[in-house]
């Protein structure tokens, strides 16, 4: 029962420390036309290198590019597909963070890889494997506005978003991505649609090649869906334990054939968890998980925290694992 340390997904792109505001400044200058797109990209790349090394330095086994180039989890991928325009701001679940809402105006069509170069460039500067993050087709569909007569409802959108994700996953797998995380937070708010997500993941999984697929849910209680999720065609399941009092007992009771990403560290609060809040759950749950490797991670992406606290959370996660491994 290997337990790896993984960054969940996003990471703060600026900080309050020396030199950590350069992306914010460059962004504003780029918008005003004072910095070229090429120079702006170079600054983004340098920030990604910095935060990939920051994660590795904190002791993580698996890092992400921090989604530094993403405007938000919805519009970054959806907005680069044919047939999709981007609209105004919409609150992202119960956070104080806002996404830009996709408007589907024509047939959703994937014409070329969207995240491939982002993955390659991050992996090239990372001393650790880079996990790729993709927002899943159901969540993309739920956040989209339909303005095309081609689509009548969310399931029809999901079918074509799935088609796009199949091609993206195939390209990523061929490029060497070993772990691809598909995020479906919306499913927890519409549990009746879990079957739709399962069908989508079956199609996406058919193109993954040798990559492993991890289905991540957060911002809601996954316990009511836990048994059903064990039947999903993915290699691992990621859970946000901060929303679910019953989940750890449920996993302990039912076990898991799949690997689990244990989101036990709160990614939305600056308070550092006490060891006694985390270790008993790890000791209880992990022996019941057959899938391997499992991951210790935060409950969600870390962009909801300031940079200094996000880094401390990762360091703290490493300390928790050391304590866990040391004493068992």
């Amino acid at each position: 029962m290997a337990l790896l340390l993984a960054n969940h997904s996003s990471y703060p792109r600026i900080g309050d420390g020396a030199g950590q505001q350069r992306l914010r400044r460059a962004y504003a200058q780029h918008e005003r036309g004072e910095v070229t797109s090429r120079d702006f990209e170079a600054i983004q790349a340098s920030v990604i290198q910095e935060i990939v090394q920051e994660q590795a330095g904190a002791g993580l086994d698996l890092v992400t590019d921090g989604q530094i180039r993403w405007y938000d989890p919805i519009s970054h991928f959806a907005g680069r597909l044919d047939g999709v325009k981007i609209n105004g701001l919409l609150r992202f679940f119960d956070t104080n963070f806002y996404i830009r809402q996709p408007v589907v105006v024509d047939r959703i069509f994937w014409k070329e890889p969207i995240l491939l170069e982002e993955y390659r460039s991050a992996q090239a500067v990372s001393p650790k494997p880079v996990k790729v993050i993709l927002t899943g087709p159901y969540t993309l569909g739920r956040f989209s506005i339909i303005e095309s007569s081609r689509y009548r409802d969310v399931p029809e959108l999901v079918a074509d978003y799935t088609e796009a994700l199949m091609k993206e996953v195939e390209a990523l797998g061929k490029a060497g991505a070993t772990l691809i995380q598909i995020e479906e937070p919306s499913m927890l708010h519409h549990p009746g649609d879990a079957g739709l997500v399962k069908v989508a993941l079956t199609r996406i999984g058919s193109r993954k090649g040798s990559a492993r697929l991890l289905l991540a849910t957060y911002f809601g209680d996954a316990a009511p869906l836990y048994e059903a999720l064990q039947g999903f065609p993915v290699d691992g399941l990621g859970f946000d334990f901060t929303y679910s009092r019953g989940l750890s007992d449920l996993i302990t009771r039912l076990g898991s054939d799949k690997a689990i990403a244990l989101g036990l560290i709160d990614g939305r609060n600056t308070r550092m968890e006490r060891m006694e809040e985390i270790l008993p759950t790890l000791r209880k749950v992990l022996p019941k998980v057959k899938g391997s490797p499992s991951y210790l991670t935060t409950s969600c992406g870390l962009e909801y925290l300031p940079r200094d606290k996000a880094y401390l959370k990762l360091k703290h996660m490493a300390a928790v694992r050391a304590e866990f491994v040391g004493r068992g």
Partner: protein
Amino acid sequence: MSRAKLKSLGIDLPILPTSSVGSFPKPDYLVDARAKFAKAKIERKELEDLERQATGYWIKTQEEIGLDVLVDGEMYRGDMVAYFSELMPGFEQSGLVRSYGNRYYHKPIIVGEARWPGPMTVGWWRYAQGLTKRPVKGMLTGPYTVMDWSFNEHYPDRRSACLALAREIRHEVEALVEAGAKIIQIDEPALSVRPEELPFAIEAMHVVTDGLPAYFILHACYGAFDTIYSQMLKLPVDNLDLAISHSTLNLMEMFRRDPFTKDLSVGVLDVHSHEVETPETVRTRIERALQLLPKESLWIDPDCGLKTRTVEEAKGKLISMVGAAKRLRVEAGAN
């Protein structure tokens, strides 16, 4: 019922009273002064003089436009939660957190017992009310929103943080009432984000308002109101101000299922749009609300604070709003 309460408080308002949600755009000289103050290039007194000047401008402007219940415009605030958390012991400011795009803010952290430090808004209310004979609303951010928009390193859970904040915020409400405020608006934009937490948000509102002689308005926006509507009627306030002018909610159906029992402030101006609505557009929105509730129960306002608009846009929008409301009053024979 609530109109009788207003009368008992000595407030006599026309039907379809017009008001604003709270914030107005800051004039350029004040934006510059705030930037200089942040860099310690000017003294606090110089900044406050300009904040008073800008408050005076907005009181005069609201009177000229013809609004019935005025606001101070929040010239002294940057952010609706940060303003209070910077004054209250028990809070620290975090590093920068992204809100969207290239926008970042310092999110408060609750690090100890939150304490009321003495009046935080009363001086500004007194100043604004001293400039006009029309009623000026007292304006506060509610405990649920302060809790939800802060990190919590001190209280064991969200409920206890919210209730502790409510006890402190009540002191501010009491101070406003003592100073003479008759209408007090409590802003709770976060109210609907976690429907399962609404019971303790209501409990907290009881702590803030119970037994106090004022007409309370609760402003909420960004709402998943369809899921929490029936429970919202339990909030101990007189008026619910809901950002619903552009909502696709079937209010008719919601109101049929659970009859609306309070006054309703209807947001009829889209504060996120640069476009200045015509009086006809505003009129259509008011008429839609009049299909749901009697005119005696409706207040008319923008759907949120106008601070993100330019001064000219904000004024243009308010002129359309007041014009439409006055016209409808005349037609109803109740000018």
